[in-house]
């Protein structure tokens, strides 16, 4: 095993020294990532503070990966207005059309032809299937930007979006209408995540994690509030293998806060080993107590929580594994379809890491 490398080493040199990490360079800075559940394809969204952005589809070989097999498919790339804040494929692997959802100023559904990746030379580019926009219904002059969204895996016709106008909107994508819209927080909503049975949680700039139930829209439960007053919470990840656990990130903080649904208010653990601010967090898709986090220190850390909440040591939990990318890692994805692969995005590069 190789030791963590100093940050001055370039990413290409890092790749040469680590034969199990595969890098693909793209023309622009990358933020949004998404694994496809039905094809060995990774979607990457550019981040240019401009109207013209681009979403690229990258193919990889999950069984016998090589540096050459992890590459972009130029025929399947398409233009996207504004940088996408999140990308996600249809969660059902057996769905006939390969739908890709993106959020920026509105929620957009794209039809991506992933059936025959070998014929990429003649394949058509992904086409825009529908645009889900609040403007038509509310007749307001602007559509507030969407900060994130989540596709309900149990009921894939539902997508929940988070917006900076303090609302969470539940869309019915089959009919293209708003199923419900809730004023979720006092300030902008930064992320949303589905639990089970129509329950979703959201984090906000007001520093709280709230849990909503679609069967009881009048009430919401505050599960956590940031210790410093009015410190915004930026990201939220709900463990899909064990729905008791959630993880969230605070603004300007290197901590990853792990929450337990059975003990609201007090976090199970605060993971403090990042040497700079944390940018992304994801739960292991096929394990109960494992999660991965990435931050501005260029490190991706894999953590294992103790079996019982009382077993957290006083000095804090040490991560189990570490990967050093050499630059600020902005995005992290750990998909259920490929549990042995983690994808990270930093600068203009996308990397596949074997767990």
């Amino acid at each position, binding site marked *: *095993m*190789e*030791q*963590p490398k*100093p*940050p*001055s080493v370039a990413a290409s040199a890092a790749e040469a020294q680590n034969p*199990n*990490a595969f890098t693909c360079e793209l023309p622009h*800075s990358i*933020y949004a990532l998404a694994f496809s559940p039905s094809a060995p394809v990774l979607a990457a969204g550019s*981040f240019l*503070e*401009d*109207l*013209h952005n681009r979403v690229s589809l990258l193919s990889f070989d999950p069984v016998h990966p090589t540096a050459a097999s992890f590459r972009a498919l130029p025929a399947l790339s398409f233009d996207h*207005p*504004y*940088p*996408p*804040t999140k990308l996600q494929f249809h969660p059902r692997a057996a769905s006939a059309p390969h739908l890709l959802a993106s959020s*920026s*100023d509105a929620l957009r559904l794209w039809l991506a032809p992933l059936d025959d990746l070998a014929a990429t030379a003649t394949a058509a580019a992904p086409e825009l299937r529908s*645009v889900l926009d609040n*403007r038509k219904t509310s007749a307001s*002059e*602007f*559509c*507030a*930007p969407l*900060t*994130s969204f989540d596709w309900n895996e149990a009921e894939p016709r539902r997508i929940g979006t988070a917006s900076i106008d303090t609302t969470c909107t539940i869309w019915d994508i089959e009919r293209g209408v708003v199923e419900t819209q809730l004023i979720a927080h006092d300030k*902008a909503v930064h992320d949303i995540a589905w639990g089970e049975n129509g329950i979703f949680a959201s984090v906000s700039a007001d520093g709280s994690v709230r849990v909503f139930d679609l069967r009881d829209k009048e009430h919401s439960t505050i599960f956590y509030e940031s210790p410093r007053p009015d410190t*915004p919470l*930026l*990201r939220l990840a709900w463990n899909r293998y064990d729905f008791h656990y959630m993880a969230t990130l605070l*603004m*300007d903080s290197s901590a990853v806060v792990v929450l337990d649904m059975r003990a609201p208010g007090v976090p199970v653990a605060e993971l403090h*080993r990042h*040497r*700079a*601010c*944390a*940018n992304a967090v994801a739960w292991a898709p096929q394990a109960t107590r494992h999660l991965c986090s990435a931050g*501005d*220190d260029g490190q*991706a850390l894999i953590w294992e929580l103790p079996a019982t909440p009382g077993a957290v040591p006083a000095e804090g939990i040490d*991560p*189990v*594994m*570490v*990967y050093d990318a050499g*630059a*600020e890692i*902005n*995005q992290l994805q750990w998909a259920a379809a490929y549990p*042995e692969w*983690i994808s990270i995005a930093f600068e203009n590069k996308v990397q596949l890491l*074997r*767990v």
Partner: protein
Amino acid sequence: MRSSHRRRFFVSFAPKSSPPASTCVDLPPAAHNELRSSANKSSFTHTIVCVPFIMHGVLELGTTDPVSEDPALVDRITASLWDTPPRAAFSSEAGVADIVVFEDLDHGNTAVEATTTMVPGEPEPHAVAGGEVAECESNAHNDLEQITMDDIGELYSLCEELDVLDDDSSSWVADPWSSFQLVPTAEATDVDDAVVAALGAIDGSCRPSPSSFVAWKRTPDSDEVQAVPLISGEPPQKLLKKAVAGAGAWMNNADGSAATMTTDQGSSIKNHVMSERRRREKLKEIRSEFMRCLLLQVDKASILAETIAYLKELEKRVEELESSSQPSPRPMETTRRRCCKSTGKKVSAGARAKRKAPAPEDTDGERRHCVSNVNVTIMDNKELLLELQCQWKELLMTRVFDAIKGVSLDVLSVQASTSDGLLGLKIQAKVVVSAAKSSQQICSIVYLSIYQSLYLRLFGVLILAILLLHACSLPHLLPSNLG
């Protein structure tokens, strides 16, 4: 790996007082029973053969497995024991039979425990353990004590031969002097083999796909070094903060750039908003102007300055209207008649005759009744003096000055006074008219009004004059065109 069917071989040594020369001695039945009872400490023990040792006892071989009769094997065992003289010494415990137990293990792991003791009831007396050990050691030619581990190993190899023999039948014959054959049973080791194979693979194999991650180590020294260059370049959580702020979509929307269909719709909405905003701004300006007009200022100096400005503005407006408009014949006639009547009775004969001729008689009579006193005096240098006294009423001053303009007179001085509702007006004028002098005269009028405390009434007249000019300015200006 331990066998599920463990076999035990029991060897007991009982000291016996007999002549060493004899190779075979018949045991008393009681002694034989005692030996057997002491040897059968564990259940299901079957005796194979009893071999008497001449000096110190009998060797009894037994097994827990069913055995069958095999005289040849018994002979071999007996021959082996008698051929090898014993040389081993054994410790003993009083009153306890010594049992040598061989545990059958496939891997050849053998546990051997051997002890010797005197069987109770023997003719020899019991002694303490130490004494008994010393007694054994002092007896140099004791055959039993000379049994060595090699003999035991050889015996064990003989037992192993029993495993190879086939088992035609299994029966137990309770005859101490007959021979028996040991029959082994097959052992199933499939599960054990599988487990062993798996465990063996664990030791020897390694992961086929090593991870990209390495084990985390705590490096406080390198933390300080590595943290600085990564952070210094950019603010923390740069892209994440931009993403949660809407990824720039809000700002771009506000700028009004449009590329998609929905954005076009937003742009049209924005245009409407801008037009609405402009309309509201216009209304706001109008409203503020109206409010300013409505404010009445009580400061005399302010009123004076405002009045002067107002009069100048009205003068300009009058001139513009004079130069630009083309009057119609009928309004001109009406205005001229009114002007003629207002100048009164006393005028020069020529002027009076010329102006009076076209006027109707009825209108002339009505005007005479209204005017109580009007005097016109012609002086040298084409100057005239107009003296007017009449009932004060609205628009009177306006009419007087309009008439003066109509006759192309240049006003030189004005004296005005009022008492008991009557207006006294004395005007001195020349025939030639110029714009500058008119303005000067107007100012004089204002000053005189102030001196005689008429400013409030004059102000009201001026406001009304504005309304009049808006409605009737054209007819009033026509006589000057004729002149």
